[in-house]
């Protein structure tokens, strides 16, 4: 008998025919033989944003994984071409929204390199302090979220509590907690007040003790160690081949940190170490982040001791925005402000690349200028985007439950990866 006749005569002919017409091909020979495609995200709490993973599974083992990006693509590189250099600063907050201060610093440095502007010592120290606070802020969330994905909620709350204190300090520094927009081309928006300095000092004095409390909860926990040790391993060669930066490359035994390799601001005058681990698994990445927190505190303490008095903005009236009170009272400043806001800083024709060591890795801005007040092309080298490429090789042959740990250890921020 023909198969179509069989279907027609069957009790379920209607269902079978619909299935046939919709062309849904399913094999049911042996359920255990079939590979399963699991769609993880974009709305999944463990993907830290809108990362979508297509995971092919054999039972519980991941055979392959394809990350899909673009769910938070806002076209910042296109927008930048329609903004003056000053106007783009608030947009950098929205790149890596877990450490907006570091993005502000990175962008301001890139533009200053393009227009050959040197900022005063005090401005440099202020920038180092806020960039390191941003690193603490970002790593706390990375660690907290990693541990929470494994199942421990308390350390996450403790990490968030510390993070909250940093946000309060930001509130004092610049008036905003989350999207700061604190740096300006040629300096920062306003001086670091004594209140802010005292706040930072109080925070770093208490922070190490609070961090140790959190570490006691996590690091001797058997579940945490078993879930992290040996998971997400990537060989040293592969790490280099994939162009990884930040904690990921320092967890595989390569001592590369732009703060030492290509010193910017005043990092060459400060004494700090680069934590390096060789295991290249999720546990090593956790420890790199923890050690970087301690180093950041060290850096901030030195900066607070060394920070000189004096101007915090460069005295280049044609490039740097003047103070508001002077704009309202002085003619000269009003003209400069008008020119800067409407026509921009007009850098010379040329190209420039400047990168900083942000919390996730090398955050670079490649700016091409055609001499006008708008960037001709602004390329953002976002560390999360480049680090996410390591996700597929890390996940090969791991268990489905390990995927969340691996994503947590890579610590992607989709605002930055999708630009």
């Amino acid at each position, binding site marked *: 008998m023909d198969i179509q006749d069989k279907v027609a005569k069957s009790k379920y002919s209607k269902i079978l025919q619909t299935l046939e017409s919709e062309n849904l091909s399913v094999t049911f020979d042996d359920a255990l033989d079939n590979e399963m495609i699991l769609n993880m995200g974009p709305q999944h709490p463990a993907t830290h944003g809108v990362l979508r993973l297509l995971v092919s599974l054999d039972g519980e083992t991941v055979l392959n994984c394809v990350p899909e*990006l*673009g769910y938070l*693509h806002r*076209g910042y*590189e*296109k*927008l930048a*071409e*329609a903004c003056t250099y000053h106007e783009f600063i608030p947009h950098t907050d929205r790149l890596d929204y877990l450490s907006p201060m570091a993005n502000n610093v990175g962008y301001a440095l890139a533009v200053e*390199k393009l227009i050959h502007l040197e900022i005063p010592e005090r401005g440099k120290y202020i920038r180092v302090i806020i960039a390191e606070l941003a690193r603490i802020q970002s790593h706390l969330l990375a660690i907290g979220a990693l541990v929470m994905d494994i199942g421990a909620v308390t350390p996450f709350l403790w990490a968030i509590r510390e993070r909250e204190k940093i946000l309060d300090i930001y509130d004092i520094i610049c008036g905003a907690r989350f999207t700061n927009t604190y740096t300006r081309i040629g300096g920062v928006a306003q001086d670091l007040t004594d209140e802010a300095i005292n706040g930072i000092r109080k925070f770093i004095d208490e922070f190490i003790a609070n961090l140790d409390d959190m570490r006691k909860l996590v690091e001797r926990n058997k579940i945490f160690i078993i879930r992290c040790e040996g998971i997400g391993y990537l060989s040293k060669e*592969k790490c*280099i*081949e*994939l*162009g990884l*930066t930040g904690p990921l490359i320092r967890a595989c035994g*390569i001592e*590369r940190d732009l703060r030492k*390799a*290509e010193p910017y601001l005043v990092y060459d005058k400060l004494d700090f170490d680069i934590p390096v681990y060789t295991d290249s698994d999720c546990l090593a990445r956790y420890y790199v982040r923890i050690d970087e927190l301690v180093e950041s505190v060290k850096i901030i303490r030195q900066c607070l001791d060394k920070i000189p008095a004096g101007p915090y903005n460069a005295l280049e009236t044609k490039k740097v925005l003047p103070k508001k009170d002077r704009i309202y009272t002085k003619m000269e400043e009003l003209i400069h402000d008008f020119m800067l806001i409407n026509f921009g800083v007009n850098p010379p024709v040329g*190209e*420039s*690349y*400047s990168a900083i060591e942000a919390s996730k890795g*090398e955050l*670079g801005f*490649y700016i*091409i200028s055609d001499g006008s007040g708008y960037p001709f*092309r602004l*390329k953002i*080298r976002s560390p999360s*985007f*480049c680090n*996410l*490429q390591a996700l597929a090789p890390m996940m090969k042959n791991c268990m489905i439950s390990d995927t969340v740990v691996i994503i947590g250890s890579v610590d992607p921020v989709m605002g930055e990866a*999708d*630009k």
Partner: protein
Amino acid sequence: MKEDRLLNLKSKLSTFDAEFTEVNGSPAVYIDKSRIIEACRVLKEDESLKFVSLVDSVSVDRFTKKDRYEMIYNLVSIEFNERIFVKIRLDSQKPEMESLCSVWESANWYEREAYDMIGINFINHPDLRRMYMPEYFEYHPLRKDFPLMGIPDSLPLPNK
């Protein structure tokens, strides 16, 4: 980069007809697209260069009549702590070049991004799909002739 190191680099690339410029302190080198793979292998594998890590790539639409498009690869030598920018001029009508995925694995996503945003075609790329935009999108948003506000109806809205 120090003077002697730069001379060394120039001698290694002498056979490739390379054109040297500079991007704030780091050398930038224009290489012809027909011999790009060979040149990149030299940059990566030569014992005195070792540009083992490709950290970024920039795709540019220069909006000129001739050689409108350009790819800029940002290479880092971890051992010598040096940076070099490899630039490749691409044709205005048909921007295409050999993919560098065979030399550096990380080129994969960078080139997908360049394909998506500027529309450069990479030959022998293992997985040339769009990085951010949906696959059915017809335009390349970072081209200079693409309007900032977008093109109406280029992205269909979901039905009710």
